[in-house]
């Protein structure tokens, strides 16, 4: 057990799976020898496993994803990296029409055991094409599973589960959590999909959120505790399958819910969660469900604009105070 970064934990998970199963291989733009991935997640893996299994590709997102599909249905377990989540737009046919639907439209004749890793989120002043949070698009596509790890311990366990899963997994990361550190076991462990993690227990209000917003929610909870407000923080860890049980039980306990993600508000995952909770726990709610999201605009560039765009601790705290 050592304290390592999210990036190192993710790499450790990839490395362990590649060592365990020779059908596992990585492909993507600049993931190999010269660069080690735009966010250095795969740095050193090409040296360790060779350029065949840590495969640099041309800038061809749709064919990267499609080749992963073709490899997956013929016996390999590809982990394809799309450098930025925004660029998955170029691979939507292969992800949403092929990978997601093959098992179904072929009547269960095939499995598509692939993982597509990509990274969402703002905060780096790289503007509208490198900062979006698009996870709800994929939540709207039956056939895909979606992991959204925000912590080092979770990312290692979840990437290993993703690689071993028989279905296509969208494995979403966040730019500003790569350097977050946590104690992570050296040995093999997996985290089942569909099990949320209660990051902090509380009695007065539940905050449900993803990625960097979980970290912000924890800071807010710490602050509000000083005011006598007890906040419970839930990180779903996977959006599909979704752990409704943990969320509903928490809402039944606290009677209040704040949903926080970095997505633009309309049609975000938070909208879906709010709908689920009103369907399944309406009678337990003591206040309206609050949503804290980015505004419905592209992600802006200038630091002053981007800081305004991304939900901050002040806004999250205000949402809690509004309903307590």
């Amino acid at each position, binding site marked *: 057990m050592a304290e390592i970064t999210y990036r190192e934990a993710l790499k450790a998970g990839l490395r362990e799976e590649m060592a365990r199963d020779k*059908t596992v*291989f990585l492909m993507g733009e600049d993931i190999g020898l010269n660069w080690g991935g735009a966010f250095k997640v795969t740095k050193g893996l090409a040296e360790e496993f060779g350029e*065949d299994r840590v495969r640099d*590709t*041309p800038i*061809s997102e*749709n*064919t*990267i*994803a*499609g*080749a*992963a*599909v*073709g*490899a*997956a*249905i*013929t*016996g*390999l377990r*590809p982990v394809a990296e799309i450098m930025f989540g925004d660029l998955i737009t170029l691979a939507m*046919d*292969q992800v949403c*029409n*092929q990978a997601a639907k*093959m*098992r*179904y*439209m*072929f*009547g*269960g*004749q*095939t*499995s598509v055991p692939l993982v597509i890793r990509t990274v969402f989120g703002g905060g780096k002043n790289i503007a509208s094409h490198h900062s979006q949070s698009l996870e709800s698009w994929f939540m709207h596509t*039956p*056939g895909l*599973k979606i992991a959204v790890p925000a912590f080092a311990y979770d990312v290692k366990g979840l990437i290993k589960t993703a690689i071993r*899963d*028989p*279905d296509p997994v969208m494995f979403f990361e966040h730019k500003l959590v790569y350097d977050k550190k946590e104690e992570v076991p050296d040995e093999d462990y997996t985290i089942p*999909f*569909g099990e949320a993690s209660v990051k902090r227990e509380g009695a007065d209000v539940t905050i449900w959120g993803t990625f960097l917003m979980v970290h912000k929610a924890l800071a807010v909870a710490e602050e509000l505790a000083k005011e006598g407000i007890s906040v419970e923080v839930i990180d779903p860890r996977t959006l599909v*399958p979704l752990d409704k049980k943990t969320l509903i039980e928490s809402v039944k306990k606290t009677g209040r819910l704040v949903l926080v993600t970095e997505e633009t508000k309309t049609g975000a995952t938070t909208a879906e969660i709010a709908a689920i909770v009103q369907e399944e726990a309406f009678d337990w709610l003591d206040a309206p469900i609050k949503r804290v999201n980015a505004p419905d605009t592209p992600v802006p560039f200038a630091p002053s604009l981007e800081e305004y765009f991304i939900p901050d601790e002040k806004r999250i705290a205000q949402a809690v105070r509004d309903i307590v």
Partner: protein
Amino acid sequence: MVSKKTLVELYTRTLKVRLFEEKVWDLFGQNLVPGTLHLYLGQEAVAAGITAAMKDSDWVQSTHRGHGHVIAKGADPKKALAELLGKKTGSCKGKGGSMHITEFDAGVLGATGVVASGLPIAVGAALSSQMKGTNDVVACFFGDGASNNGTFGESLNMAAIWKLPVIWVVENNFYAMGTPIKLTCPSENIAARADGYCTPNVVVDGNNALEVYEAAVEAVKRARDGDGPTLIECKTYRKRGHSRFDPAKYRPKEEAEHWLSRDPVDIIKEIAIKEGAITEKEAEKIRKKLEKEMEEAGKFAVESDYPEPEKALEDVYAEEF
């Protein structure tokens, strides 16, 4: 010259696809086929010639006009027809239909309803073959229209840089739905585009199963020898329109007459007879046998049950959650 046995095989395979499609047309006429249809009638020699050069363990990637690829590769006509009728006994349990007709066990990676989306999948399957060392080859069928899509360039490039065992099979029937290829492609031959990806390419008469076969044999050898992909452009012609209600009136009369007078089944039969591989009588015997097979397949499909409605909820994931 190829063996007599091969000529008989080419005739049989071409005819089998023809008779399958005629059975489909017959069932369609009885209003038993839901949805739309993109018939392979007229293009039979392409699927027959390519698959005759392949092994059972090799793969084909199919398209929205995919019945011919699937049957030529060896799929069970019973399950295929049942699928077209939306029956529970269909190869996809009635979940795919005409545009997703597939039989994995016969070596079909899948038929896709999105034009040009099969090329990347073929790249991946070929990569699988190369990385696992199985030496299997992937034939990826697509139409002239698909060659205008971005995945064409991406996939030809990726297959070439990694020397993947792929055969790109362009079925150039001159029309993307109703748009003539001369309006959307600046060169006379689509094959010319492969030069830019350092991919050996050839143009053949796609109505002549023997010509297609001979090109395929060379391409398969190149792929198995580790020398990478080949593109084979097969010039061919739809006997009917693009889909179920298209009378294809946009095709000039002389052009249509020229191509429709060159029937793929007649062409390979004549070659086989001329080369002494088969007699008219033997050819007729093969036809009768295949007709019987299709008759039985049709009966099986018609008599099969429709899936229970709630089966719509199954097969989304490997395990329900």
